[in-house]
């Protein structure tokens, strides 16, 4: 009897060990990939089943922001019917569609291993700690950092060939975005050589017009406006907060007509908004300390929900999330508006870059990576992503393809019977000609202060925008230290009463301890003598 039990135990232990051995490698893979969308995982399973039939298969490791691509599975009634007859609907995820499209177009199977990151800092840490990806989508400042560290593979010449019909990116990218990507350089090399834009936007303030006037919301100073004490949120990251604080600190200069009308306004603006001199960092720290005592919270994600639930009246937001917040509020039956501060706004981009560590010299893989970017840049796919995530694509559409503009008209265009309408100029984005009649839509006037204004800001907003550069190590260190100074508890803030209370508590604890010890000694003495 005992023997057989022993045997069963042994078999059981052996089985458990075998299972652990089997599970470990699988677990490793899942962990290395971080979050995997279920559809992408299904696809990779399907693809790996088919590996046997095709002799060459490329694995493309893509890492993107969370919730930053169309995952498909739309309801039929979400179908987008454009006026020119185009119908757009996301049935499968974008990643699945790409794999299918690539096989149909090039006859080669690609398996996309899709994973996500939460912040640029997380992505950089992941890359530093040895996670290997082929194609990632960081923001402009991390692109600059990766370029400076020589970790990127430049896009091939083929990618920029406008005569190739499959080069959707170069054919479709907005002239405005293209200009920015070509004029910004790191070590003498333009961004455009290493990065292809994906989404872009500006920063601003989402506010509740029932409680706050537009003029009050149109300045960074609202963060320190004591009238709305504890009713405003600020971003919980040092770069965005630094930018806003610069705006508050330099308000007088930035709104001075002499400064705005000067010939080299843009250069000077960029310089002012990238000021990291020690004196300025010290001033910013004071500003942010005031903000800390005035705002409701430093938030990374909760601001949207708090805005919709009415806990706060205004929140510092990226334009894409602003669109989402306004949409949500509208569903709940009240209206929010978006304002861009008069001083200056931060123009940001997220772009696809190929990593040396992943792509290396593998030409087939590089081609697949470039094709992935092109596929996302196909106007109908750009629309799908925009509809799904609420951010603004860098794609304007090719000469023969106005899908993106038609989509805008479908979203925001005024109905014929509407009376209060405004003509909204978007020529700067779509054709590079600010006054281009072809790219003007007639919209309900309220849209000039709401979603449309956030998703496609007007030209004067772009005019007062600045790109925030990536700072060198010393400046970065100083700014991070400043941020910690702002957030840490200052012992001088402790009220006198607390000090007194602590002293009394400490003394009484000591007294109790001492009396315990004395009592114990007395016991011991008594024990010995008896």
């Amino acid at each position, binding site marked *: 009897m005992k023997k057989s039990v022993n045997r069963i135990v042994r078999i059981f232990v052996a089985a458990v060990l075998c299972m652990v051995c089997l599970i470990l490698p699988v677990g490793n893979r899942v962990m290395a990939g971080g979050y995997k969308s279920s559809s992408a995982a299904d696809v990779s399973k399907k693809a790996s089943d088919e590996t046997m039939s095709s002799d060459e298969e490329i694995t493309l490791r893509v890492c993107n922001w969370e919730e930053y691509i169309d995952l498909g599975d739309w309801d039929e009634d979400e179908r987008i019917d454009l006026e020119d007859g185009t119908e757009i609907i996301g049935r499968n995820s974008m990643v699945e569609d790409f794999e299918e499209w690539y096989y149909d177009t090039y006859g080669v199977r690609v398996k996309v291993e899709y994973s996500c990151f939460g912040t640029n800092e997380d992505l950089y840490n992941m890359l530093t700690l040895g996670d290997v990806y082929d194609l990632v989508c960081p923001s402009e400042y991390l692109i600059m950092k990766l370029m400076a560290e020589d970790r990127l593979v430049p896009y091939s010449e083929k990618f920029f060939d406008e005569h190739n019909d499959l080069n959707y990116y170069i054919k479709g990218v907005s002239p405005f975005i293209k200009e920015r990507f070509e004029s910004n350089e790191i070590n003498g090399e333009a961004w455009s050589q290493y990065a292809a834009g994906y989404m872009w936007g500006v920063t601003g303030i989402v506010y509740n017009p029932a409680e706050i006037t537009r003029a009050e919301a149109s300045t960074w100073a609202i963060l320190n406006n004591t009238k709305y004490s504890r009713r405003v949120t600020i971003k919980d990251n040092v770069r965005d907060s630094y930018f806003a604080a610069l705006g508050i600190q330099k308000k007088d200069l930035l709104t001075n007509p002499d400064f705005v009308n000067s010939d080299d306004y843009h250069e000077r603006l960029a310089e002012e908004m990238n000021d990291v001199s020690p004196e300025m960092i010290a001033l910013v720290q004071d500003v942010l300390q005031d903000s*800390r005592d005035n705002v409701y919270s430093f938030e990374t994600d909760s601001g949207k929900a708090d805005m919709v639930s009415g*806990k706060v009246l205004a929140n510092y937001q990226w334009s894409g999330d602003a669109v989402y917040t306004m949409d949500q509020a509208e569903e709940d039956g009240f209206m929010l508006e978006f304002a861009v501060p008069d001083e200056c706004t931060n123009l940001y981009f997220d772009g696809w870059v190929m990593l040396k560590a992943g792509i290396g010299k593998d030409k087939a893989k590089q081609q697949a990576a470039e094709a992935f970017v092109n596929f996302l840049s196909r106007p109908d796919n750009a629309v799908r992503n925009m509809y799904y995530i609420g951010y603004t694509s860098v794609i304007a559409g090719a000469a023969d393809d106005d899908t993106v503009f038609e989509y805008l008209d479908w979203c925001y265009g005024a109905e014929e019977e509407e009376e209060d309408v405004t003509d909204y100029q978007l020529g700067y984005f779509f054709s590079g000609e600010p006054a281009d009649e072809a790219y003007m839509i007639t919209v309900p006037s309220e849209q000039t202060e709401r979603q449309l204004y956030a998703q496609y800001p007007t030209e004067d907003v772009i005019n007062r925008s600045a790109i925030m550069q990536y700072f060198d190590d010393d400046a970065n260190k100083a700014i991070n230290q400043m941020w*910690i100074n702002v957030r840490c508890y200052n012992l001088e803030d402790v009220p006198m009463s607390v000090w007194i209370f602590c002293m009394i508590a400490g003394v009484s604890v000591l007294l109790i301890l001492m009396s315990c010890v004395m009592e114990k000694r007395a016991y011991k003495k008594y024990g010995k003598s008896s």
Partner: protein
Amino acid sequence: MKGIHFTRKQLCIPYALFLICFVIAPLFVIIYYAFTNGEGRFTVANLTGFFSSPNTIGTLAYSFGIAIVTTGVCLFAAYPIAYILARSNMKKKHAVVMMFVLPMWINFTLRITALKEILTLLEGNLAYHPFLNSVIGMTYDFLPFMILPIYTTLMNLDNSLLEAANDLGAGSIQTFFKVTLPLSVPGIVSGIVMVFLPSMTNYVVLDMLYNSTYIMGSLIGSYFSAYDWHNGSMIALILLLIILVFTLLTNRFEDETSNGRGGALL
């Protein structure tokens, strides 16, 4: 029939491997980072930096403040409950104890989110009372950890001791302070250890309840996200040492009291 035979030692191997990979090795990595600078050279600058910067000292004080108040509130809330439960003759006592443990079965972020809404209803604007909210959140989160150990020690308390105290003429109040309370010290100590240490670092509660002040956990996080592994590791290491000292102290205290108790009983 020989088959595969596992000795006890062999059965320990998986756990030993786990221990080495996920406990011992990371500890050495932390120590390495804590005592090196950006170029990988040995330095104690991180250590001296910690004790000379008003930020870290302020954060340490603030964390201690939150932890002490939370532990105190938990203790004063938990002891009467545990006492009443343990002394009562209720038939369905276990069901009541279960009620206090039940919240632990629900995901803690969910609970804190719910708490956030309740507090907003009560206070109107959470941002005016960050310290109070953090303490409430932590207390809500950690209260069961205080109730359970105290309840268990009180349950195991020998009833004849109380009877003896009564027989010898002690009133109920005197019995409580001279017999029950000293005998439940081990439960109190383990409750304090279970509540005090996590409430020094659990910054998720602070984040979710909109307390924008850093505590030790968030300070480490902010160093790490700024790619500064060295200062972050040093703080983690110092926290580890504080916890170690704390545990050693309470262990000694526990031993002494049990010895003392033994003496008293004899």
